[in-house]
């Protein structure tokens, strides 16, 4: 896929703006030991476990993994959007030091849309089909800023212009079905950024779009987040997207984080075989014609429980008996985290293995 090359923010100087302090010691969002269990009628499924990561003010953090790795569930937990019945959530989700898991609905509703906003995966279904888009942007302004009708229209048009929708004033009265998929996702981005939140969560924001539109929408998203000084938690299965946008990357597998590292080190020397596999599976323009792609063998459904093994071991070329009988822990060193007994040591080793 096309990777946006325009924005490659360096991790260090955090863009200005953002109300929170920019010191590394005070993260904007800190997820600690998050665990989400879906308790069905006859069996319970642990979707997310032992997930801890931080997002500093203005930082772009990626949450990467295949379908079913628990990345969306994590983001829903942060937003408080998981259903209350049949779901057990434990751990801490600290936003600016306040545990969102302990917040009541009223408090959450004051934060959601205002301080933390979200862009969803499917723009075709995430907008209300019977309400004009102008109203859908305006209602969040009314809710959090108490803006009056005229002001709201004014601001909504500005926002539409900002996300690159031509003739925004006329578009305000359009209904979602009159807009293309790319346009709808822009509208959703406009809604999310309307109140200039400090944290934006984007859950696969480009997956449902045409490849050509993907890059454009991602550009708009990254640019506006950067401009507003907001932090971004980007959830994706696409390492190409991560490479273009994120400062920090968390790789998830089967509900747990298996590797966390800053972008450059991660791409230069992935340590977890799963990360290595993801990187190696990206088709490259410079590979000779006709050479087959290198997928990770097996499928994400072939997991064993983390409780007494490494969940990735059935698909891992490096797995031995230890991996199949002991659950690895997330170990931290040199600003990186890794959950593996047999990490890939060097990039050379990686290329040789795969």
């Amino acid at each position, binding site marked *: 896929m096309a990777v946006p090359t325009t924005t490659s923010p360096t991790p260090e100087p955090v863009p200005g703006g953002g109300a929170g302090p920019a010191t590394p010691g005070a993260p904007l969002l800190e997820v600690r030991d998050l665990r989400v269990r879906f308790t069905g009628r006859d069996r319970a499924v642990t979707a997310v476990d032992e997930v801890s990561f931080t997002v500093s003010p203005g930082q772009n953090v990626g949450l990467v993994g295949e379908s079913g790795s628990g990345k969306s569930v994590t983001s829903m937990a942060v*937003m408080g*959007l998981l259903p209350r019945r049949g779901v057990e959530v434990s751990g801490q989700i600290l936003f600016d030091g306040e545990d969102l898991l302990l917040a009541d*609905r009223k408090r*959450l*509703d*004051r*934060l*959601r*849309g*205002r301080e933390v*906003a*979200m862009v*969803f995966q*499917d723009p075709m*279904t*995430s*907008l*209300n*089909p*019977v*309400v*004009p888009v102008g*109203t859908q942007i305006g*209602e*969040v302004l009314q*809710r*959090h800023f108490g803006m009056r009708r005229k002001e709201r229209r004014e601001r909504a048009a500005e926002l539409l212009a900002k996300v690159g929708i031509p003739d925004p004033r006329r578009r305000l009265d359009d*209904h979602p*079905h*009159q807009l293309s998929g790319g346009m709808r996702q822009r509208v*959703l981005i406009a*809604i999310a950024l309307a109140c200039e939140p400090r944290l934006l969560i984007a859950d696969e924001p480009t997956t449902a779009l045409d490849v050509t539109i993907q890059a454009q929408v991602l550009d708009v998203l990254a640019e506006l987040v950067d401009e507003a000084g907001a932090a971004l938690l980007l959830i994706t299965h696409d390492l190409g997207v991560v490479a273009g946008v994120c400062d920090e990357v968390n790789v998830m597998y089967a509900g747990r984080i298996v590797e966390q590292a800053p972008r450059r080190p991660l791409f230069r020397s992935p340590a977890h075989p799963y990360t290595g596999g993801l990187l190696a599976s990206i088709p490259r323009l410079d590979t000779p014609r006709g050479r087959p792609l290198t997928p990770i063998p097996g499928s994400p459904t072939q997991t064993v429980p983390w409780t007494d093994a490494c969940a990735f071991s059935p698909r891992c070329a490096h797995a031995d008996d230890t991996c199949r009988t002991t659950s690895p822990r997330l170990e931290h060193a040199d600003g990186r985290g890794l959950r593996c007994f047999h990490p890939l040591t060097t990039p050379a080793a990686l290329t040789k293995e795969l």
Partner: protein
Amino acid sequence: MLRFVVRRLLLLVPVLIGLSVLLFAWVRALPGDPARSLLGERATDAGVERINEVYGFDRPLVEQYVSYVGALLRGDFGTSIQTGRPVTESFIDYFPATIELAVTALLFAVVIGVPLGYLAARHQGRWLDTTVVTGSLLGVVTPVFFLAILLKLVFANWLGWLPTGLRQDPRIDATHVTNFYVLDGFLTQEWDAAFNAMAHLVLPAIALGTIPLAIIVRITRAAVADVLNEDYVRTAHAKGLAAATISRRHVLRNALLPVVTTIGLQAGLLLSGAVLTETVFSFNGIGSYLFTAITRRDYPVLQGFILFIALLYCLINLLVDVVYGLIDPRVRAA
């Protein structure tokens, strides 16, 4: 929107023409003939012939149809063979009663059904939901005549809270303008007449409205439950919107689409379904009149009444489509 309404009204023309043909053929396909039923058991052949001649039943069918339609176009629905009264006059005698009853029953069903279905969907699986679902099932399967008799027995005969039948206490000297008794009471400011007419509507309306109520509850519950799972409702929560805004703008507006369709269909059914209820409560609507017309093969009355019911049905459907368009912009575009 206006163009849409006009187009739909024009479409009514072929529908009504088709209907008139079918009706015309259908009433004549009924066994028995009107002249004999008018003259009774000791009818002579000469007498029957004379009647047929007077009403034109001896002429070819096509000719009869053409003159029938010709009269219709002039607003003339013919005269009753039995009573000799113009059919249009009996419209005014009987339709207001049935429409009044049907509207009240529908109001009862909608005003209670939609909120109840909504609440049930919001509390899926809890006691309120279970009660509503079970209750609505009971409502659907209870025969109208049984419920009508039960209501009458308990609330009119035993408890004496409400009148046992009729549209209004005959002892009240009410002035009737439109023959919609409640409306008349308000128009003439005869409040006792209005309230008396309302009291007479309560039991029949509940009896007639229970099945539509149960259906509306179930449809609303299903529709709301569906919409609650929609992505755009999640978006609304992510915006931090107040619960009331989410319910009104995002959940109800979308859930109402199937509910409106159901309400329209039920409204049509109420008109024809009122017969049983009217009989139990001696409520003087089209029910008993139509029944007599059928047994006596009173062709002009049958054709006129059924055509008028069909016309009302079409208009209700048109109204439903208009409301649909108002709620959902995608329909307007189509």
